Each structure stands twice: as C-alpha cells, then as structure tokens.
C-alpha cells in the first residue's frame, strides 16, 4: 500500500510540474502578462507546494503509527487490567494480536491447522481486539492513500491558481531548496546527537541499577547474575555486585588490540616503505591493489577464518611445543584483526611518506647515505607525526572491531595478559548482551549501552588525539 501511495505521489507531482508550467506559459503568451520568473520555476513551485506538506504528514503518520494503533486497539474495555501491564507484556500481547489480525478475517477453510489452533487458543477479547487491529490497518492504509492523493491535488491546484504576473516563483523556489540543502547538512549533526543521546539515556538507566564506580573499577564480569532475577521484583544489590565489572573487558580489548598492532604496524609500515621507496612501478601496480583487497573483505570473513582455521592451527602448534593454548585464544582473534588492519596502516603511512618532499631524499643521498639510512634517519622522522596519527587511527579501528572478536574470541571474561588464554572484549559483550531477549528494563540489556558509550568515547578520544598530533607536529615544507 505504502509503495503504491508513494508511486502515486511521484506521478501527481510530476503532472503538477507540467500544469504549473503550462499555466505560466499560457499567461505569458495568451494573457500577455509579463512573468517575473522562467516558466520552469512555476512548475517547480507548484510541485514543492503540493509535495512538501504531504511528505511531512506522511512522516508524522509513520512515526506515530504505533501510538495510534495502541489507542485504537488496546482499550481498557477489552483489557481491564491493562494499566498494570509491564512494557514487555504489552509488547507480547501486541505481537500476538498482530499475528491474529492477519488470519482472523479469513474463512476457516483457508487456514492451516497451526493457524486454526492459534485462533482457538485466543480469548474472546483478544479476537475482538485482533479484528479491530485488522480494521485499523485497513483504515490506516486508506487514510494514507487519500492523504497522498487528495491533499497534494488540493494544494497543487491552489498553488496553480495563485500563479500570476505578480508571483515571483524563482526566489521562493530557491529559498525552499536552500532550506532543504541546509537541512541535509545538519542531518550529520543530528546523527551524532542521536548516537550520543541514545547511548547516554540508556546508560543512565543502567547506572540506576549499577553504581558507576563498581562498573568502572570492579574486576568481575558475570552479567547472567542479573538475568536470573525478574526485573519487576527489583534487584538485590548483592546480586549485582561484581556482576558488571568493566576491567576484564578493557584488558581483553587492549590485549587483542595489542596483538593486532604487533602484526599490523611492522607489516603495514614496511609494506608502505617498500612500495613507496623501493618497488618499481610495475610491482607497485600489482601489489598495492592486492593488499587493498584485505581492506575490502568484510570482517565477518576474517572472523570465520580466525575461528575455523587460525585458532585450531595455533592450538595445534602450541600443543606440539608443549604450551597449553585455548581454542578461543586472544592470539587468534588478534592475528586475524592484525591482518585486517595491515592495509589501513599501509595506505595511511603511504600517503604520509609520499608527502615528504623529494629534496630531503636528494639531500640525504648527496651526503652519501644509503636508501635505508635515508628512510630511517630522514624520511621516517619527517613523516613521524602522520605515521603516529595513522597508528592511533588503527588502534581505534581495532578497539571498535566487532565481528572478528565475536566469532573468534571468548565470551567468558578473563583478567589476563597472556595472549594464549581466552579473553573477551567490549564489543563481544555488547553483542552477547543484545542477542536474544532485548528488555529495556533489565541491566543485562542496558549494559550494552553503557559499554557502547564507553567505546564511543574511547574511539572519539583516540581520533581527536590522532588529529591533534598530526596538526601540531606536522613538518611543513613550503
């Protein structure tokens, strides 16, 4: 229904463009009126006037559909005890009614046995509500459709009638478009605000259950303790003590990120140096795209590879030399992540190395330095700020990476600095706490937002630090 309505809206607005333009031309040639804008602009004017209110209202209807639905269906007459229901129960009932509303109006013969049993299990009131819901969906669909046809047509004709010699359409149209353009560029800010607000609000909810000091400084991580308690009964403080301790997640994240950087920094930097300073053009043209393939591979692929091949391989190697290695060792996840970050480090370093002016190299060669001495003593110091910046960006990438650690790292928190032991990360715990039942009144779900906020701030800090270092310490050669 909604796609059909959108299509009609497009067709109507396209027609109004011609109607508006035609009327303007008519005035100009048959009415001998001098127009203040090009005829095209009258077409645009009519379209904008017809389209914008309809789209805004559609957006509003879409946003508040849930509220209307609840008002229409969940009346206290059908469900007398509705005011005592929790959000979770309300959601469950609504879901049930949604399923019922699809089948409630069908003839009995068309139903499968499963559907029949659903119908039989529902109470009389639920059936009435489901019928109401089906009605509501119908009414909602039709009101959308009429809104899409009637309102633009009325507005369009009003706008067409207002076209005259006095109306200067061009500035109006340009003003509206300027507002639209301006609005688009503010959306980026809105997204950031949205991220911040949604994280902060839910994190505050989380900190109602758990003391922030406990969260940031305690070393025990057993979120399932919160899960066994029913949210409506409130939580025993003792249950939550040591249930949400951030420290083991932080050490796990840093451990895996460190392993990743130990792989990625030397390989990425040396590849960049080799390709920028040594390789012939032909080698560079082949090798560079191949290394950049690594950056294009989705992280879920690395995670699969780490869990399927890398982790068992490391375990076998470790055991053959007598080292006990976990099947979910931090080493496997870190290595896979390191490989993923190689092209990130190498392409950023490559840019910085290329930016060092040739005159510095020539000067160094003229003094008799070899190429490697030039690189180590002249080019790298000159490019140091940029390279450090790229390392920091890579660290921030490693900390925020999710799929590799979800698939290859452990779920159990473990306060360790030994890469052969299992470790868990912030992102892994965000994912595990949100998979399955999402209940916004349980700290087990809400902790994801507190972790997300911490992660967001950590990566933000690293990025700002990287930009500051690059800006402050960059050598300028003019």
């Amino acid at each position, binding site marked *: 229904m909604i796609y059909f309505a959108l299509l009609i809206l497009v067709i109507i607005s396209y027609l109004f463009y011609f109607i508006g333009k035609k009327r303007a031309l008519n005035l100009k040639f048959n009415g001998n009126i001098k127009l203040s804008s090009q005829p095209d602009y009258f077409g645009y004017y009519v379209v904008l006037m017809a389209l914008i209110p309809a789209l805004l209202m559609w957006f509003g209807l879409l946003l508040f559909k849930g*509220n209307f639905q609840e008002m229409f269906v969940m009346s206290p007459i059908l469900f007398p005890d509705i005011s005592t229901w929790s959000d979770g129960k309300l959601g469950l009932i609504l879901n049930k009614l949604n399923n019922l509303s699809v089948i409630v109006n069908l003839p009995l013969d068309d139903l499968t046995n499963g559907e029949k049993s659903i119908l039989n299990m529902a109470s009389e009131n639920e059936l009435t509500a489901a019928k109401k819901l089906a009605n509501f969906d119908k009414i909602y669909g039709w009101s959308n459709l009429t809104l899409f046809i009637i309102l633009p047509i009325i507005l369009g004709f009003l706008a067409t009638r207002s076209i005259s010699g006095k109306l200067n359409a061009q500035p109006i149209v340009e003003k509206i478009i300027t507002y639209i353009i301006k609005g688009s560029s503010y959306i980026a800010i809105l997204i*950031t605000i949205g991220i911040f607000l949604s994280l902060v609000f839910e994190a505050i909810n989380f900190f109602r259950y758990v003391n922030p000091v406990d969260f940031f400084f305690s070393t025990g991580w057993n979120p399932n303790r919160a899960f066994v308690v029913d949210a409506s009964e409130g939580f025993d403080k003792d249950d939550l003590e040591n249930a949400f301790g951030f420290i083991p997640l932080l050490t796990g994240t840093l451990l895996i990120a460190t392993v990743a950087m130990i792989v990625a920094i030397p390989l990425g930097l040396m*590849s960049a140096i080799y390709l920028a300073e040594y390789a012939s053009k032909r080698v560079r043209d082949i090798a560079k795209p191949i*290394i950049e393939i690594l950056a294009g591979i989705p992280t879920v692929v690395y995670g699969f590879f780490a869990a399927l091949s890398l982790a068992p391989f490391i375990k076998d190697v470790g055991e053959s030399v007598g080292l006990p290695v976990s099947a979910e060792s931090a080493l496997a996840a870190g290595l896979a992540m390191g490989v993923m970050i190689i092209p990130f480090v190498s392409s950023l370093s490559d840019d910085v190395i290329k930016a060092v002016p040739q005159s510095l190299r020539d000067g160094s060669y003229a003094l008799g330095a070899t190429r490697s001495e030039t690189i180590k003593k002249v080019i790298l110091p000159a490019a140091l700020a940029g390279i450090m910046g790229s390392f920091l960006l890579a660290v921030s990438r490693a900390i925020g990476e999710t799929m590799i650690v979800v698939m290859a790292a452990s779920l159990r928190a473990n306060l360790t600095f030994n890469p052969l032991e299992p470790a868990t990360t912030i992102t892994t715990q965000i994912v595990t706490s949100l998979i399955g039942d999402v209940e916004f009144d349980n700290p087990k779900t809400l902790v994801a937002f507190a972790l997300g906020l911490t992660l967001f701030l950590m990566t933000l800090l690293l990025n700002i630090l990287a930009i500051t270092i690059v800006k402050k310490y960059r050598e300028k050669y003019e």
Partner: protein
Amino acid sequence: MNSLNKRLSAEKRFRAYGLFAVALSMFFVLILMWKIFSTGSGAFVRTTIEANVFFNPDFIQVNQNSLEKELYRASYVALADEVVRQNHPKLNEEQFIKVREMYTRKFDYQLRDYLLDNPDKIGQSIIMKITASSDLDQIVKGNYPRDVPEAQRKINDYQLSVLDKLTSEGKVSSVFNFWFFTKGDSRDPESAGIWGAVMGSLYALIICFSFAFPIGLLASVYLEEFVKPGKVTDIIEVNINNLAAVPSIVFGLLGLGMLIGVIGLPYQVPLVGGLVLGFMTLPTIIIASRASLRSVPPSIREGALAVGATKMQTVFHHVIPLSLPGTLTGTIIGMAQALGETAPLLMIGMVAFVMEIPGGPLDPATGLPSQIYLWSESAERGFLEKTSAGIMLLLLFLIIMNTAAVVIRRRLEVKW
C-alpha cells in the same frame, strides 16, 4: 671499507624486510581466498538419490481434480515414507528409520513442489532424484572420513552399506544445487538457501541508498558551494570526520535505542537495517562528494554566473552534473562497505532464523553477512560449506560493486 660493507648489508636486509612484508600481506590474501574456495565449492552441488515415486492418491488424499490449494495443503509425509519402503523392500522398523534418515527431512516438500508443477502425475509412477540428507551428502563429498570407528560417524555401517549398494546401482548422483540460490534459510543444511538473505540485503541497500545519496549529495553541495567558512561549517566538518570513525557497532546501538526503542520501528526489518547502514555511509558519501565538487574548476562557475545564472542555477545546472561521477563512485564504495557490515545488523535483530523470503523492507529478514554469521555459528558440517559459499557470493557482489565504481571513475570522470 669494513663499515661500508656493513652499511650495504644493512641496506640489503632492510630492503628484504620490506619485500617480506609485502609478500606476507599478499600471502594472507591468497590463503584466505584459498581456504574459502576450498571449503565452499561443495555447496554448489548436492547429492541426490534416484527413487521410484508412485504418487498414490490414497496417501496424499487428493485426486486429479484437486485444486492447487488442496495440493498445497495435503500432507506428503506418509507418501515420503511409502516411497522409501517401496525403494528399499524388506526393511525391518529399525532399518527403515536408518534408511529414511539418508533422505532429506524435507522429502515431503520436494514431493509437494513436484506435484504442484505437474498435477497430472497423480496416480502415476515416475523416477525422481530425491535430495540426500546433509550427513550423507558430506560422506559422498568426502568431507566426512569413512574409515573411523562407527561411533564417531554420523552415518553408521548399515547406512554405508545401503549407500554403497545404491552407488553400485548408479542411483547416487550429484546435481547443481539450485536450492542454494532460490531458497530461504532452513534448519537442514541440504535445503538451506541464501536467497532470503540476498533479498534482505538488497532491500536494506535500497533504503540505505535512498537515504544517504540525496542527503549526502545535498549536504556536500551546501558545505562546498553555499556556506562561507565559519564556526558552523567547522562544527559540521569535524562532526562528519568523527562520524566516519565511529565503530559500526555504535551505529547499531543508535538503531536499537533510537529507531526501535524511541520511534518504535519494528525489530529485525531491512528498513531499520538500511537506515542504520545509511547513517554509516553518509560521511563517506559527503567526503567523496565534497572532493569531487572541489575538483570542478572555478571557471565553470564563473562562466555560468557571467551569463546571468543565479547561484542555484550555476550549482544545479553545471557544477553538480560535472561532479556526479565522483559522487557516484564514492557512493558505490560506501554501499559496498555497508553490504559487508555485520555488527549493526546484529544489534537491530537481523540475525534471526527466517525461512520466508522477504517481500519488502518491512518483512523480517536477515542480511547476507548476518546469514553468514548465523551459519558459521551452527555446529553441523553441512553449514560449513554453506558459510564459505555465502562468503563467496558476498565477495562476488563486492567485486561487482567495486568494479562498477572503477568503471564509472574511468569512463565518466572529467579530468581538468
């Protein structure tokens, strides 16, 4: 002289390190690809067992005159059991269960689908290639070893002997696995397909494009052409750069907290997935589009302004069309990244088990990468090759998109 030799060998060593680093990185690409192709290629064929099928109307309780709806509703389970009994006569009850396990659990659906296409076959006997169960499939493909003790095998000695008999009769054959490309997910590896996930990803990408492309383009036009450098632009600019570096999982939390929690959009639908991916792609598009707008020389703008065009006309008639190839290239690359993103889909619930193929952006669905994740978490060996094959398909899409970006850049981009 000695010190010069030392310096020269240090030079050689350093160069060798560099070469080694490049070679090692390239080696990683190769080993990754090799691993995926070697485990995934098996998913494109499926083992079938030839069987004589008699569509006995008594077992399915339909006749020649039955409507399509009745054919669809009828139960084919009894018929499937009967087919097994007829093709393997003289089985006791225990043996029958073992033999039945060699065929797919979706046996009845296969019979139903055949009958729906050929309703005239009721009451007739035909020879059909019935899909084998995943465990048997893995034995035939050689992924399960045969020479281990019976207790460690999913297929026992009796089933192996039946399999060998069927093979010697020439009844076991491999066919191209169309199901993988046409079906939705399934609990049984042999009948699980990727199409539902592909459609889910497609709807999400359409939403992502229709959100991020117009807004990204207009925002970059505003920042490059209309606004003078100042505090507001600085804030927007810093903001966009930071947004580009926010971890994808945080965007997922935004989708869960804002779009689902506050606005009340449904869980696990491509609409929400597409919007979240759109939020993520927006900075990429804005950055690419601004670079592209900046590369349009000022002489174009001055020329248009000189013949009396307004600022708006200059930008929309001349600057944007010239910068569009660069913007499109950036958009396609951003969309390719979005296609491979898994973490945000996990947050908004697009990782559930969905059998139906979604018909629109408001139907529950998984995405291509989240389907890969789902299969990779499954313990059955049959899903391992599905996972790798899913990855191959995902990589194929990424290659196509990136190639398209390169082609657009080469063909359409104007060099000034």
